[in-house]
């Protein structure tokens, strides 16, 4: 005889309300799991999508994603000359906020050598890759752009020739791929007014030098203009059979750069930029699980307290403890499992509504389920203690 089910049938309103309440909590726990995974996935997406053999960045820097790294563009030639290197490509990555379609959008720009260099989009689901040195872009669909659309960035308009959803930036915002010179221009090129002001300022500064005539100061000006041929990293592909560690050591020792493999680059992100948010989400998951278990415990305790007289009657007419334990445990399990299922269904129906990626992984769901069931068992202990403490004499109105 399933006492637990009969009791819940009688209190189905409260049972359903509790399932909805605890189920919402479980949905948030699962959403937190998804956000945790999504945070890591998006944070590493551009690294995984680019995936060169080595990342060469400014010395003592953990760039180009975890920390800013800056180096002259021509250094990739030096890297290319290192024994074991098959290909070395300049790479630039930065985050901007610009108007697209009349809306201010936050996104990142990747600049790469479009003529066979590393670092470009590998999977384009619509259109084609960049084939011209200038004014073409591959965009992420999140920006709402279509093939053929023109987007003004800085001084020029760029045509969308391809769409790729392969990668987002480390914050989960969409990526735009441009040719290296275009990306440098969008980042560094000043508008005409700013160029004129800067020239004036430089000229005045040089004119104050006694050794320079105005003519020679004028001649010096181009050489003193800020360099826009700056990159953030050099991406390296090794020759077949080349020793990765040896090549990295050579670059560090002779070229004075920092060198990371892709797994090392991933670790830099996990221990750096992603660590804070990851810990935060982990803490939220733990807190919410504890809250869920406490709520289940209180509900089961209340359910049990309401049945104390019935439990006394059961004991008086000879029901063994296992019948009573089973009733309390079953209620706890029914409540926990039903709430979890409600939460699971809810989050699978709503994860797309979240602004950040919610990456639901079956492994996480199974672990959460196991934790929830364990919590449900622990939660029922409070009710069980009360049930087992109940004296059969209570049914007779005595003791």
């Amino acid at each position: 005889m399933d006492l637990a089910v009969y009791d819940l049938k009688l209190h189905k309103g409260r049972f359903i309300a509790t399932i909805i309440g605890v189920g919402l909590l479980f949905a948030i726990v699962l959403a937190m799991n998804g956000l945790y995974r999504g945070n890591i996935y998006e944070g590493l997406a551009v690294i995984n999508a680019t995936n060169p053999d080595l990342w060469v960045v400014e010395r003592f820097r953990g760039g180009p994603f975890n920390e800013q790294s800056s180096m002259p563009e021509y250094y990739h030639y030096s890297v290319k000359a290192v024994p074991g290197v098959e290909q070395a490509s300049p790479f630039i990555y930065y985050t901007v906020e610009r108007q697209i379609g009349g809306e201010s959008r936050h996104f990142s720009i990747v600049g790469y050598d479009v003529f066979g260099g590393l670092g470009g989009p590998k999977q384009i689901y619509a259109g084609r890759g960049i084939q011209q040195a200038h004014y073409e872009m591959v965009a992420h669909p999140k920006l709402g752009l279509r093939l053929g659309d023109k987007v003004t960035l800085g001084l020029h308009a760029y045509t969308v020739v391809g769409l790729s959803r392969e990668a987002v930036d480390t914050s989960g915002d969409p990526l735009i791929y441009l040719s290296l010179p275009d990306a440098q221009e969008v980042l560094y090129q000043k508008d005409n007014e700013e160029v004129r002001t800067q020239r004036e300022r430089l000229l005045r500064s040089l004119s104050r030098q006694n050794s320079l005539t105005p003519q020679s100061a004028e001649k010096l000006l181009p050489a003193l203009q800020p360099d826009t041929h700056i990159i953030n990293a050099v991406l390296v592909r090794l020759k077949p059979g080349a020793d990765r560690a040896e090549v990295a050591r050579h670059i560090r020792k002779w070229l004075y750069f920092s060198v990371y493999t892709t797994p090392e680059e991933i670790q830099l992100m996990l221990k750096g930029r992603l660590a804070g948010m990851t810990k935060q989400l982990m803490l939220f998951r733990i807190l919410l699980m504890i809250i869920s278990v406490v709520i289940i415990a209180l509900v089961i305790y209340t359910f049990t307290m309401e049945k104390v007289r019935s439990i006394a009657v059961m004991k008086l007419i000879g029901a063994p403890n296992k019948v009573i334990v089973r009733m309390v445990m079953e209620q706890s399990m029914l409540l926990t499992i039903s709430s979890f299922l409600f939460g699971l269904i809810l989050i699978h129906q709503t994860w797309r509504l979240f602004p950040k990626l919610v990456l639901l992984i079956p492994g996480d769901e199974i672990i959460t389920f196991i934790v929830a069931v364990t919590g449900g068992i622990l939660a029922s202990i409070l009710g069980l203690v009360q049930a087992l403490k109940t004296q059969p004499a209570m049914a007779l109105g005595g003791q």
Partner: protein
Amino acid sequence: MEVLRIEGLSKIFGSGRLEVRALEDINLSVFPGDLVALLGPSGSGKTTMLLCTSLILEPTQGKIIFDGQTIFQKNGWSGGVDVRSIRREKMGFIFQAHNLIPFLTARQNVLFPLSLVGIKGETANRRVMELLEYMEIADRADYLPALLSGGEQQRVAIARALANNPRLILADEPTASLDTERGKKVMELLKKIAKENRSAVIVVTHDVRMIEGFDYVYHLKDGHLNHLVK
């Protein structure tokens, strides 16, 4: 053979200056089919007597023999005796406040003690309906207790007490929550059960109007049991 034999039973609560002698040298024999009334005012020890008889409360001294088996002797339960299984298999209980399990229907309330002794399926269902028909409440079989009147609930409670053909039925103020007419009907039912089922019935009550036709009437006062009527 007696269903229940109690010899020199005492129950003392507390010790020293706080000692309370709830029962003092109680002797009682109950045979199958006996209808026994236990009268007494509040605080006379009726509930303590019922708790000791139903093997819930351990007496301080004396002897309890149930259905030929010594259950309690001198100052402890006899070894190997499972008092809960004796209650489950050989005793039936009727309470003052009916005490039906509120989330079970009348049918399920009667089925519950059967399920405890492993009687299930069609056999159990047949037995339940027999009992409910015997109590003339079969038409209310699928009602929850809250939807039954006090008299109907008490009849379901009696059916539950009879489910396992108990050797002894212990009834604690079974008419206390009923009006006189319904109370008398319940007492008539208990008499019928005692005669037809050959179950011994001990009824604890303070209402002398309800004990007409009982085989034995005892009066409990300050822990002492006095035999009044046969």
